[in-house]
């Protein structure tokens, strides 16, 4: 059953829902990346919680007008309006009070969510509210989602993606260095507003699928996971889109097989699995890679220190250094260097002498500043430059 769901064999409707969710996940990961790079990830939490009173009010208004309270575009409009008010309140509080952003976010988030819950309770007591099932907006559900709803979500996700693509340069520039961006003519306030608008759009679109409590996870977890894999901003954005899309797809497909399961938590758990994998395995910044890099650095330091000690005939006391040199066949168990060890030691000493000569030359300041006791001089100078340097060296000991 799950396999069939994952391979889109559960019929037209389920397929459409899964594809809509995927597009939403991509849009969320991509948009959330820029928010993350701007260091304002938490704002998305306020945006999503602030949608609830709008949803409740929209439902009540639509029922009062004699319509269907669950008409999705109407609910989304209400959600957008109330989260817009929430955003404006946060901005106003930061400008006119001494509250910091996190405090303003906390205040808006809790008050709006509280008001929304009260409205939901009121709706439950209404006649039309009995079978409304409006509580699916909290945790999301794709069960019973209409084709038209899936199309609205897919189209909205596509529009968000296009806008992000258009605004990627100014959003990155503002994320890295807002002052510089402002001086080069970027309207930082307007870019921030556009970014918040996109986040709001993703949130509103995601309410039915992921639910407003957890949509924040789909905005934040994919960029955080993607950041572990790459040091390149746009690659990170693309990867976050993939992770978000994959999580949403898996979540939607799984909940198609088990309609009782809320979709949002499954999507979030899927993205968490991808995050956990990234945290341990990612070669750029993952945990294992970090440990491996630290160990390699430690070996380089000990190897260098050991060789320099051998070169001047000192005894090596550090057991780790000795074991390292032995393993590489550079020294015997009693610390006496092998032939290979003697050659390597002489080379290390010569490198140090070359570096010293380089650092003594005022004209070579910038190159010499790259000295860190480990960098091989061949990576900084050409063979010709090294030969030139060697002519200035005093006759080194131990090298013929």
């Amino acid at each position: 059953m799950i396999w069939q769901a994952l391979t889109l064999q559960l019929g037209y409707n389920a397929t459409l829902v899964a594809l809509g969710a995927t597009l939403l996940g991509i849009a969320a990961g991509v948009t959330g990346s820029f928010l993350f790079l701007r260091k304002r990830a938490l704002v998305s939490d306020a945006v999503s919680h602030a949608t609830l009173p709008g949803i409740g009010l929209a439902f009540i208004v639509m029922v009062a007008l004699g319509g269907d309270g669950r008409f999705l575009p109407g609910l989304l409009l209400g959600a957008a309006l109330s989260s817009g008010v929430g955003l404006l309140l946060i901005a106003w509080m930061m400008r006119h009070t001494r509250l910091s952003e996190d405090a303003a976010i906390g205040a808006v988030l809790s008050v709006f969510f509280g008001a929304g819950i009260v409205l939901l309770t009121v709706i439950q007591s209404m006649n039309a509210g009995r079978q409304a099932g409006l509580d699916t907006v909290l945790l999301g559900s794709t069960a019973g989602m209409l084709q038209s709803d899936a199309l609205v979500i897919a189209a909205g996700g596509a529009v968000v993606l296009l806008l992000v693509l258009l605004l990627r340069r100014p959003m990155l520039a503002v994320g890295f260095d807002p002052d510089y961006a402002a001086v080069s003519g970027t309207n930082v306030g307007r870019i921030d507003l556009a970014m918040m608008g996109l986040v709001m759009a993703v949130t509103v679109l995601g309410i039915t699928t992921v639910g407003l409590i957890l949509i924040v996870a789909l905005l934040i977890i994919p960029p955080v996971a993607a950041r572990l894999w790459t040091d390149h901003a746009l690659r990170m954005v693309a990867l976050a889109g993939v992770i978000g899309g994959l999580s949403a797809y898996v979540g939607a497909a799984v909940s198609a097989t088990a309609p009782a399961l809320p979709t949002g938590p499954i999507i979030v758990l899927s993205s968490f699995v991808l995050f956990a994998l990234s945290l341990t395995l990612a070669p750029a910044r993952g945990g294992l890679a970090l440990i491996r890099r630290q160990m390699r650095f430690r070996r380089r330091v000990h190897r260098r220190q050991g060789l320099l000690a051998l070169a001047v005939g000192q005894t090596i006391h550090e057991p780790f250094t000795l074991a390292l040199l032995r393993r590489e066949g550079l020294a015997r168990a009693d610390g006496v260097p092998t032939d290979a060890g003697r050659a390597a030691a002489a080379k290390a000493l010569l490198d140090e002498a070359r570096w010293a000569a380089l650092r003594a030359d005022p004209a070579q300041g910038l190159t010499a500043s790259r000295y860190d006791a480990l960098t091989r001089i061949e990576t900084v100078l050409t063979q010709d430059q090294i030969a030139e340097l060697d002519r200035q060296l005093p006759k080194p000991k131990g090298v013929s």
Partner: protein
Amino acid sequence: MVAIKDLDPVKSAPLNGGMQALPPALSVAGLTVAYGEKPAVFSVDMTLAQGTMTAIVGPNGAGKSTLLKAVLGLVKPLSGEVRLFGLPLSRARDRIAYVPQRASVDWDFPARVIDVVLMGLHRELGLLRRIRPEHIDRAHACLARVGMQDFATRQIGQLSGGQQQRVFLARALVQQADLYLLDEPFAGVDAATEKAIIAVLKELQAEGRSIVAVHHDLSTVRAYFDHLFLINTRAIAAGPVADVFTAQNLQRAYGGRLGEAQLAGGAVTG
């Protein structure tokens, strides 16, 4: 020309009225900036002629960086007017380049050195134009100018402070501006970087461009700059270094902080 040079440029320019008088690279009139209810810069007038290299110098908290930020529109002044090449900032952005304090950004941002330099082209590229090989070449040339050509693909988080500062300078160079505004470009950088940066700035000046830098090291003012603007909330003195860099002026700028003032006085007489 000599006569004009000797006069205060802001006064001489309107009097002169002729075509040959270039508008000053930067002119500031009656500028006041306050944080909360404390003025950081009060009623400052400043005029920098084109082709000059000016240090803005003053004690800590004297409003040096604030003055620069107000000129760049980054903080809103309470009063006063700023003109760049005779134009308001909004029409002069193509002609200026800003080098912010290195510590003002998060260097763990996912970007390579070349990406940061290419950000200097964002204004030129707008939203839609693609980055072409000639843009990359330009970025590489600017990196070479600051001695960072070997670091183009390096993650910016791996750079030393001096290297970060040189990347910031390269990002400004790629803009090919007429006025460079730098905020503490020598703060916390190694001596080799300091020499490399000053060499580039002098090249820029030789090309006819103008430079203004917030500077805190009195011992290098004479060697690095030809004009000096002394500030301590109010403008203390302004003009060619030879005229302004005197023990008396420094005493007025730094007040009772004799240690620094004496050091500077030594630099003047020596």
